């Protein structure tokens, strides 16, 4: 059982090293915790409670007999209770005054509905454009207001098409002009019904996300990314104990005992694997307990985690079998692991956990394969859909392992 004795000794040393502990658990949890605090009070309703933006609304719309006062319905939509957490609406009558308030920063945004807004739905010559102004020093708040407004306008565009079709029918005599009014009213009612169902903002969150809590949905991929990044770090750090022991004389001393080279290497590799297993298990559990992160269903999660352990461990073995001495670990930690980690998880770091801004590039790194399967698992993907990534990752790990073992055996023959 010498390999296990060697592994146990290595584990004891790893978990006694403050340096290892900080990189294994401290930094990943700390970084995720920071994001958790930033998005901390995201409510269970999925309504993001960024401080409400002050919006002044000036409704100059005169209305007309056929469509009624559509400007007023826009104002009512904006004043909807659902949106009250996002924007604080105040009504004004003076457009110039409203513009000034935005310029002076007294208000975050202004919405000015022109006098011919309703008319524009029946009169092709009326322009009826809603004016939107925002405080240029603010970014996120006005953007939200603007997107809500755009959603409303998009919905109203349907009315325009309806009325212009109806006008054609009136011209051709197949419809009377007083039938247009009720048609528009029905349409407006339908829009209101759908906004009441929360359509306006919810349409941006993926319906399949199993995360119960919105903050967890936001920081879940960050936590996964941190875990993958630092598991690879642990892989290299624990494997490089072979080089460190060589330099400190304990590895040569091991070779003077009746312990074979393969027992020593096996012990080292078991230690690498077990260290990452413990790291991943602790990170997954504590992220779940601390931040409520949902990791997906059990079997895919176990498989993805095994992938991570194998991938990070064998990458460490490969890299250390190439490294000449521990003086090179600076280049490896600061350069190689950082670059491959960033490329492999570029989707997470650019905020597109599902998408792929750099196409195939992430899949050129071992981290990329693990990240794909881990993120898919988190978003509730089935076992069969993550299987290609899992198999790919295990395949890469096997190649790394064989090369690394071959090089180490040659080195200490």
């Amino acid at each position, binding site marked *: 059982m010498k390999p296990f004795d060697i592994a146990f000794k290595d584990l004891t040393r790893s978990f006694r090293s403050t340096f290892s502990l900080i990189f294994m658990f401290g930094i990943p949890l700390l970084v995720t915790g920071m994001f958790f605090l930033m998005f901390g009070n995201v409510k269970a309703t999925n309504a993001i409670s960024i401080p409400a933006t002050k919006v002044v609304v000036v409704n100059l719309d005169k209305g007309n007999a056929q469509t009624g006062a559509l400007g007023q319905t826009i104002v009512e939509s904006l004043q909807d209770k659902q949106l009250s957490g996002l924007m604080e609406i105040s009504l004004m009558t003076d457009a110039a005054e409203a513009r000034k308030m935005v310029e002076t920063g007294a208000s975050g945004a202004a919405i000015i509905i022109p006098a011919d807004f309703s008319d524009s739905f029946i009169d092709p010559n009326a322009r009826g454009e809603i004016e939107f102004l925002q405080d240029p020093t603010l970014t996120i708040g006005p953007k939200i207001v603007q997107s809500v407004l755009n959603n409303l306008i998009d919905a109203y565009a349907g009315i325009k098409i309806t009325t212009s079709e109806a006008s054609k029918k009136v011209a051709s005599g197949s419809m009377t002009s007083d039938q247009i009014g009720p048609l528009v009213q029905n349409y407006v009612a339908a829009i209101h019904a759908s906004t009441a169902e929360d359509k306006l903002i919810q349409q941006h969150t993926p319906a399949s996300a199993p995360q119960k809590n919105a903050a967890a949905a936001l920081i879940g991929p960050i936590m996964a990314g941190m875990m993958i990044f630092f598991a690879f770090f642990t892989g290299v750090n624990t494997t490089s104990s072979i080089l460190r022991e060589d330099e400190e004389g304990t590895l040569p001393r091991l070779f003077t*005992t009746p312990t074979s080279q393969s027992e020593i290497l096996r012990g080292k590799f078991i230690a690498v694997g077990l260290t990452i297993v413990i790291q991943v298990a602790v990170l997954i559990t504590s992220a779940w307990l601390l931040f409520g992160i949902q990791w997906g269903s059990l079997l895919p999660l176990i498989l993805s985690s095994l992938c991570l352990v194998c991938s990070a461990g064998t990458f460490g073995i490969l890299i250390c079998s190439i490294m000449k001495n521990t003086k090179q670990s600076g280049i490896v930690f600061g350069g190689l692991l950082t670059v491959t980690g960033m490329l492999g998880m570029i989707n997470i770091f650019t905020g597109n956990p599902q998408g792929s801004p750099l196409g195939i590039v992430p899949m050129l790194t071992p981290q990329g394969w693990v990240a794909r399967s881990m993120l898919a698992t988190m978003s509730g993907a089935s076992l069969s859909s993550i299987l290609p990534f899992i198999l790919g990752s295990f395949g890469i790990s096997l190649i790394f392992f064989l090369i690394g073992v071959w090089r180490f055996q040659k080195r200490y023959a």
Partner: protein
Amino acid sequence: MQPALYVQNLHKTFRNGHNLKAVDGVSFEVNPGEIFSLLGPNGAGKTTTISMLSALLKPDNGATGVSDIRIMGKSLLAEPLAAKAMIGVVPQDIALYQDLTARENLVFWAKMYGLKGAQLKTRVAEVLELIGLTDRANDRISKYSGGMKRRVNIGVALLHQPSVIYMDEPTVGIDPQSRRSILDGVIALKNQGMTVLYTTHYMEEAQELSDRIAIMDHGKIIANDTHENLIRLVGQKTRISLSVNVEPETMIEPWRACNGVSTLVIEDTKINLLVDDSNIVLPRLFETAAAKNVRITSVEIQEPNLETVFLHLTGRALRDA
């Protein structure tokens, strides 16, 4: 009688840039129960030899004849694990896990030597007692003094009660008290019947401990015998150590030319000479100095010792050869 350690024709060349022949045809035998010393200056090839004897380095295939290393009759090259189980190696540099305690280190190394269960426990306790660290056993090595670390470093090699123990300069860089206790420990091991291969560059240690001494220089063993017999190599020669009131280099040429001077080296401010008969040569040295207006400020005539032997054999001082 079968030797405890049989070493035949070892060669090692380090091929990094300059082809340095660190060990050049080394052969010797160590009898059971003997303390055998390799005495030589830094860089003589002692550690390289020990490394080959512990299977850390493979001997080069010498152009002349086969190499062989046998420990208690077992070939290190043919059955490495069986041969290695017979030896305890004390490396020149401390090779311990600094972040583990002394006890944890001993338990780990005992497992590597194949000890288990009750025997492991007993041996760890015995060795802790032997190296006098029972009450500090649960402190981490990093908190130990240099002397204490050296003692644990030696203790590790004793766990499995080996037949042969190699000690590579175990007293380098420690205080006189720890040094004394280590030397006493080596003698105690011999008294228990252990065979010791000891390397050092301190001639006093080799002289005090060894049954036989091999003097090593530039990768070769240049003499191998008991202390008495080695001293006889110098013959009737006497070692004279002189100081002068000028730069010592001034007197190299004139004194070397004197009849009866066989060797002359400068060590710090002293000029050391090997002369045939000090009664005849000493007056000549004074005359030569006087002729150059140089005054001799001190004279010391020494009984021949290993230092003298090394001087005689190599023409250089042991300390900074």
